[in-house]
């Protein structure tokens, strides 16, 4: 007890099982649509974090302890729901999957909304244009023939063919990392093509030709310049650029 009083810091540091903590500074791009003259600006917050904390934990700490008006979307907090895609140190990531300790906490961590979609408030963007593109590519199974009485058969190899693109959580990290999407808001974007791929290469699906027709549009798959930003951005590890290339190839060969 005396020791604690004499040298509280040293004692705290040697406490058995104590989780090491460190301070991080978040540099956050903010926008308040209700301000007198709405304009985006930067604001810095410093919070104390722990080894397993993610950017989302730090944002929560700010919101819950310092500034309740800091606004962002989040839900599952473990990379499954796709709510919290953000631009973190210049790269699109999910805030709940980006560990602070992996981001060099010595420097301010820069957090911005994903690019290319209208900002509503702080880190929240309007997702409607993104989902509108998704809806356009017929993102559902188009099956012909009579309804089977049991399940349709599909071999493990046929199932494997489109496995990668079934992982998509529609977080928009890929689409909003794409320079073509930034400069041309009409481009379908990688996520829509990924979801088209998921059905085009599904052996049970018969809508492939129609989908390829849609993607053959001037705002379709040919706008892709193979920059690979999308593959790097995908928090699910989908090989997005590869999927886009496969769709391009299918368009030429009509083999899928």
């Amino acid at each position, binding site marked *: 007890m005396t020791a604690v009083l004499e040298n509280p810091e040293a004692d705290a540091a040697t406490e058995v099982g104590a989780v090491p903590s460190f301070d991080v500074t978040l540099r956050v791009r903010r926008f308040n649509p209700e301000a007198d003259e709405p304009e985006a600006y930067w604001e810095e917050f410093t919070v104390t974090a722990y080894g397993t904390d993610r950017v989302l934990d730090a944002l929560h700490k700010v919101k819950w302890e310092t500034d309740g008006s800091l606004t962002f979307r989040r839900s599952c907090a*473990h990379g499954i729901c796709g709510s919290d895609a953000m631009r973190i140190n210049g790269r699109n990531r999910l805030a709940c999957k980006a560990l602070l300790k992996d981001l060099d906490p010595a420097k301010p961590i820069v957090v911005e909304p994903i690019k290319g979609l209208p900002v509503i408030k702080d880190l929240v963007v309007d997702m409607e244009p993104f989902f509108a593109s998704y*809806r356009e590519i017929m993102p*559902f199974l188009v099956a012909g023939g009579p309804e089977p009485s049991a399940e349709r058969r599909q071999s493990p190899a046929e199932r494997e063919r489109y496995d990668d693109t079934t992982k998509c959580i529609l977080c928009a990290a890929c689409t909003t990392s794409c320079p073509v999407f930034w400069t041309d808001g009409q481009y379908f974007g990688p996520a829509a093509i990924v979801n088209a791929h998921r059905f085009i290469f599904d052996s049970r699906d018969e809508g492939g030709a129609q989908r390829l027709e849609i993607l053959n549009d001037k705002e379709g798959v040919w706008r892709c310049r193979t920059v690979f930003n999308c593959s790097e951005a995908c928090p699910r590890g989908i090989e997005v650029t590869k999927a886009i290339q496969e769709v391009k190839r299918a368009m030429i060969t009509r083999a899928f």
Partner: protein
Amino acid sequence: MQTHQYDVVIVGAGGAGMRAALESSTRARTAVLTKLYPTRSHTGAAQGGMCAALANVEEDNWEWHTFDTVKGGDYLVDQDAAEVMAKEAIDAVIDLERMGLPFNRTPEGRIDQRRFGGHTRNHGEAAVRRSCYAADRTGHMILQTLYQQCVKQDVAFFNEFYVLDVLLTHDLTSGEVADGEQVQVSGVVAYELATGEIHVFRAKSVVFATGGAGKIYKTTSNAHTLTGDGMALALRRGIPLEDMEFFQFHPTGLAGLGILLSEAARGEGGILRNSDGERFMERYAPTIKDLAPRDMVARAMANEVREGRGCGPDKDYVLLDLTHLEPAHIDAKLPDITEFARTYLGVEPYTEPVPVYPTAHYAMGGIPTTIDAEVLRNNTDVVGGLFAAGEVACVSVHGANRLGTNSLLDINVFGKRAGIAAARYATEAPWVDLPEDPAGPVVGEIERLRDQAAGERVADVRRELQETMDANAQVFRTADSLTQAMDDVTSLKKRFAAVSVQDKGRRFNTDLLEAVELGFLVDLAEVVVAGALAREESRGGHFREDFPTRDDEKFLHHTMAYQRPAATGGTEIVLDHKPVTMTRYQPMERKY
């Protein structure tokens, strides 16, 4: 304020809500109101599978599935409902396959199946392969597939609309409406997050599919948004909640974080070990060991830790060992959860065991319904036009402990039933009038929370609530711990009345919504604790150390909890009972 009119309004766009929408939107004019974009719903976090006695890989039948569900639920399951679920499971899986769900396949191209906790062959002989799955992302595939079908059917979604009240023809809050009197729903009131605008939706049928309430606990697998909204709205409108003391703690949450690692890890051969390296489940469930039902495994783990056989520097977790499995097998069957271990704990499951500890996972209780998803306002009377399905509801198919995979099944079977029943009701029933000033109470509460000048932080009250629930109403409970929890909740309820938010804006005010959600959590925590205090026995997920055995004589009944005006002002929880429906199975000792 805007007013809308639909035949059917569905609240929530997870699995149950979208499955209901697919049925209802082809039969009646339907709107889905959801506080999240549909694909953000927590159905997407479910991993392991959906059981159905397809018998694709070994002998199985729905009667065995029914029995397992009843026994797994420690005989608090309504057996007629469990039978409906197990029978309709087969069509539910086939429906999903036809919609395009990418199930894993057998070499013959049929839907593959794997083992899961508590699912057995011939009434407990051995584990059976009953769970239909898509790697360890079955919930993700279900959510995506249902959303895809909703896009195909052009279902009308109102995204990021928070439903904050349900409108009824009668005031049920005082409990003075006579039994047998016809009470009907007339609509809901919603808050549009983007604009802060209030919307009144007039509807003949309303389906609640708002999911669970895991955020009453600190350590939970649940999303931040799982704040029990539908349950709390019903409770506040005088509708009872059933069996809320039964909360499931999933054995394998990532230690310290609560992130779910599917039971499929054990279904595929994973083993739980203590600090001695011992496979301790052999002592607790000699026949099916690590695949015992979740309540038993969670208690066994907590017991190992408190008897000093925990692992790590604080000896406060156990280990999930997958190191004897082939890396290729892990990659094929458990890719997501092994990535969670790598990302969040820096553990490589190929070579290192993963630290795990029980995490609050699932509310067995909820809004009481019939097998057609009609909401009950007492033991017998339904509220005309009001339906509930999924985790928000209590049919009861899960009783005192839900078996793994039965939640994905529940949302599909009873979501479908709710959608059909809601549409049918809407086509037959006449319109009823909205109450005068339908949005009044919601507007009042929103303004109170937003305009309260200075007060306590939402986050502080919420953290204290979650901490007391973790400490006092978790896997092990006693009269003392629960009394402590009740005292804490009572004082937090008072403090909630004085919380203030910093964001005073109208647009995308999530600060304000977190305050509203905290109100739901406080009310629900009180119901959980009140039920747990009164139930002086141990059954399924509810374990009382001061009453360690099941007491069928006194407690083989459902708890019905009502929020009623208290004599001293405010509200209190009043408990009643409802009999359990028994058909084929008499209660037996629950051994595995």
